[in-house]
């Protein structure tokens, strides 16, 4: 490599010029093609968050329909076929298209800012992952609207979802949706892990990583080891249905419970992909609104890690009613109880933080307080479900519906709404309205409890899950009606949120860089951040960089020497975040989008024919190669900056 480049690197530049040049270098290209080519983590993060919220609303409308049908006994609003599709799509949407992706979306946006970086590690790959997620979600909703929606539940048990009892392509669409979302989730996880381990600001040692970033790092690792199980399972399901394999066909040596093991080995950790980021939000928000760092940082980090390990040892508690060996079940009861310990530790540390801090009661904190009430109840009913005898009564009843919504909404959605109120100023440059925010919170809190608390009683009183109606003489009518009233209230509260967000975007109070007086690095960037995040990438000297002076006496405080006209950033060492080398990020490109389109064609076609895998691979190979293939002009620029290791 002896070629010297004539391409010039901007050398000295006054500060204002530097900012303008950096902005030009890091921003999205213009126009529609530019929008499709964008790879800036904030651009991808924003559209990812908005898409996930869109699926949340869609899933909520499905839920509202279910609640309207169940509001009265013997109701005929929705018949059994449509109802079964609706509850399947509600669960599938909320779990695969909202809850997990939205957390990844928040990470894609926030993590680079929080660690003082300008990008995630693999921005083109994350763009591809976003498009795959979106296309998969659009596919499943298209199938539903065409009357081909999956109808075997979000967990798609065999043999019901198999070739004998699930005719047509309904459950193939479900299985392929899994492929889309798993590809997306896995690729983003690789990006997040590499970002957190290699792109942290100098001086941000492991002990100085913000708790939210820890949460996303741990979640990403969990995803890598858990998602393959369901990828494999859903592939086996498609194969059983399409090419007559016999994985789940007991008549030819297959096993019905194999599906459940593979699904729940993924499925239980999955709820922690949703819950652990929520825990990350909690720590970020509580520290800021209690005006002190969270108590017990080492315990908090170890609790997150312990939770993530234990999460892999619980899955059989979803199968207590099957005939897996009884002794095995007792082991899973023990593990299910044990996982409460790290969560309890975190809860007590947060209460200690609030007790020894000074409290600023703003909307983000209200949502966080909602967590304490709702999640704790959900966790306690979880202990009940972890006990085999109790589970045998309440499994597959509305008691479980109550439990799962208490933990997911209390543990993840309330912190998420708090996070949206908290980071909205950073993302948009405007504050959300406090008064609407408080109304949003109280309506959501009240509506949630009215909707879901009665379900505990319904389950104990014999009401099973997944029933499209029920007889009048069971006496379940009044509580169901009450639950529906709660559901409608939730819908109103979400509408308030949408109104607040839309209005505030245009008319909200202008936000300063750090409107909440918070401590982490994203609050050092502008609101909204420039395309390049930080003009002078920071050097970190403590755990709360914006609250205290550097603990590294005499250390530098910012990074210089990075190019202004090329997307150059600093890679640091994994443990100590010492500067290691300069890394040049790829330019925006249309190829991730085109590759996602090609992959989508391959995945959808393979629902109908196995040969699609063959010609589809060739179709995908072309844009993927173009994605990687270097451009001459860019290579010249890189050569001008090149220095061998």
């Amino acid at each position: 490599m002896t070629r010297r480049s004539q391409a010039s690197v901007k050398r000295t530049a006054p500060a204002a010029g530097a900012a303008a040049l950096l902005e030009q270098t890091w921003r999205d290209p213009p126009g529609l093609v530019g929008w499709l080519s964008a790879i800036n983590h904030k651009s991808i993060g924003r559209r990812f968050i908005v898409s996930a919220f869109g699926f949340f609303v869609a899933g909520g409308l499905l839920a509202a329909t279910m609640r309207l049908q169940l509001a009265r006994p013997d109701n005929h609003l929705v018949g059994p076929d449509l109802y079964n599709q609706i509850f399947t799509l509600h669960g599938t949407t909320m779990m695969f298209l909202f809850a997990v992706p939205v957390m990844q979306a928040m990470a894609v946006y926030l993590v680079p800012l929080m660690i003082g970086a300008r990008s995630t590690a693999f921005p083109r790959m994350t763009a591809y992952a976003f498009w795959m997620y979106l296309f998969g979600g659009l596919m499943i909703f298209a199938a539903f609207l065409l009357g081909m929606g999956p109808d075997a539940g979000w967990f798609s048990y065999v043999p019901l979802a198999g070739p004998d009892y699930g005719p047509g392509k309904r459950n193939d669409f479900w299985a392929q949706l899994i492929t889309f979302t798993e590809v997306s989730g896995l690729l983003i996880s690789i990006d997040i892990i590499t970002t957190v381990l290699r792109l942290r600001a100098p001086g941000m040692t492991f002990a100085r990583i913000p708790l939210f970033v820890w949460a996303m790092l741990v979640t990403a690792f969990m995803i890598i080891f858990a998602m393959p199980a369901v990828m494999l399972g859903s592939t086996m399901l498609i194969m059983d249905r399409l090419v007559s394999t016999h994985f789940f066909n007991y008549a030819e040596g297959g096993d019905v419970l194999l599906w459940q093991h593979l699904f729940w080995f993924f499925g239980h950790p999955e709820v922690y992909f949703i819950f652990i980021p929520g825990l990350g939000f909690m720590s970020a928000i509580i520290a800021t609104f209690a005006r002190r760092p969270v108590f017990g940082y080492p315990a908090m980090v170890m609790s997150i890690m312990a939770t993530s390990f234990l999460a892999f040892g619980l899955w059989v508690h979803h199968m207590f009613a099957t005939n897996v060996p009884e002794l095995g079940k007792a082991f899973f009861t023990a593990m299910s109880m044990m996982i409460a310990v790290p969560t309890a530790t975190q809860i007590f540390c947060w209460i200690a933080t609030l007790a020894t801090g000074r409290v600023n009661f703003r909307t983000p904190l209200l949502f966080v307080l909602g967590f304490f009430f709702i999640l704790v109840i959900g966790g306690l009913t979880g202990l009940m479900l972890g006990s085999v005898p109790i589970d045998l009564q309440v499994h597959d009843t509305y008691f479980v519906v109550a439990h799962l919504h208490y933990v997911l909404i209390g543990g993840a959605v309330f912190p998420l709404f708090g996070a949206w109120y908290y980071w909205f100023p950073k993302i948009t440059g405007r504050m959300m309205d406090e008064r609407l925010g408080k109304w949003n919170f109280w309506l959501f809190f009240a509506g949630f409890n009215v909707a879901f608390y009665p379900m505990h009683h319904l389950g104990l009183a014999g009401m099973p899950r997944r029933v499209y109606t029920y007889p009048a003489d069971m006496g379940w009518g009044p509580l169901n009606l009450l639950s529906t009233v709660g559901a409608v209230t939730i819908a109103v509260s979400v509408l308030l949120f949408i109104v607040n967000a839309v209005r505030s975007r245009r008319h909200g109070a202008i936000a300063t860089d750090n409107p909440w007086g918070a401590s982490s690095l994203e609050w050092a960037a502008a609101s909204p951040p420039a395309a390049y995040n930080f003009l002078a990438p920071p050097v970190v000297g403590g755990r709360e960089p914006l609250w205290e002076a550097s603990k590294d006496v005499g250390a530098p405080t910012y990074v210089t020497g990075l190019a202004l006209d090329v997307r150059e950033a600093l890679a640091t060492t994994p443990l100590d975040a010492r500067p290691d080398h300069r890394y040049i990020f790829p330019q925006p490109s249309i190829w991730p989008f085109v590759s996602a389109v090609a992959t989508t064609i391959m995945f959808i076609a393979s629902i109908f024919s196995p040969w699609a895998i063959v010609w589809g691979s060739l179709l995908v190979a072309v844009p993927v190669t173009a994605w990687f293939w270097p451009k001459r002009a860019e290579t010249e620029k890189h050569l001008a900056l090149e220095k061998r290791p």
Partner: protein
Amino acid sequence: MNAIQNALQSAGPQAAQIEQLWWLTLAVCAIAFVPTLGALLWSLWRAPRATEATPADTAIVSQPERRTRSVVVSAVVISGIGLAFLLLASVRTDHALAQLPLEDALNIQVTGHRWWWDIQYDDPDPSKIFSTANEIYIPVGRPVVITLLSDDVIHSLWVPNLHGKKDLIPGQTATMQIRADKAGTYRGQCAEFCGLQHAFMAFTVTALPAADFDAWRAAQLEPAAQPTDEKAKRGEQLFTSGSCMMCHAIQGTTANARMAPNLTHVASRRTLAAGTVANTPQNLAAWITDPQKIKPGVNMPAHHLPGGDLDALVTYLGTLK
């Protein structure tokens, strides 16, 4: 709320053990919940107020925060003890559930179908084996061992007043042991999503005093009553010469198929179609004419019989007590 499909209205030792564990667990959970939320609310009430401009207190983490630490550690330790206690209670209940004395147990085999329950009473003497559908009768005070099989997809047998549920898994055999100590009729429902009419796959378990049970069983062993009047005779003829016999069995006639509920004593059942509608002549006529209107998706096709024929068939079936 009903008392007949209710986990907190136990009518036998299995459900009673579970109910006891439930109340104990609820108590322990309440004991955990109240102080935790109390501590939170007390902290919020007591803590000084701040705004965004209030300087953050970073000095606090450089202090040992001993008191806070000991409170948090104590709370975690107490939680751990509570969890261990719940684990112990759960395992003990597990153990108790497996200890139901099984001398002189009644043996029943339940096969789940979409969307009805095939119930076979087993006996060492093959001539004493009989089948019925959707209604289980058991003697009070005697253990019952239920073998669970499935003909198609996963179902789950759940009669909460008597016990927790157990799944019926195709290709596998499971068992459940119950005992009713109180006479009465308890309702159950399939508790594993099994398709279109999962919501209408109910069954009952009726516990009778021993003598009444023996009488019931003897009656079940009897073949179908021979029709005496003309209309009923015509009905029987329609049944055995038409498509009914291709799926249903009536002991004592030539109808011997096992693909659909056994109808030998259908007139003594309270409901039709696994708890979907009451067993009345009008409902039966409507069901025969078009089952898809009452329970869309069932395997039974429509039979649009001429009026006289339908009446005869319904009359005949009405004699099968």
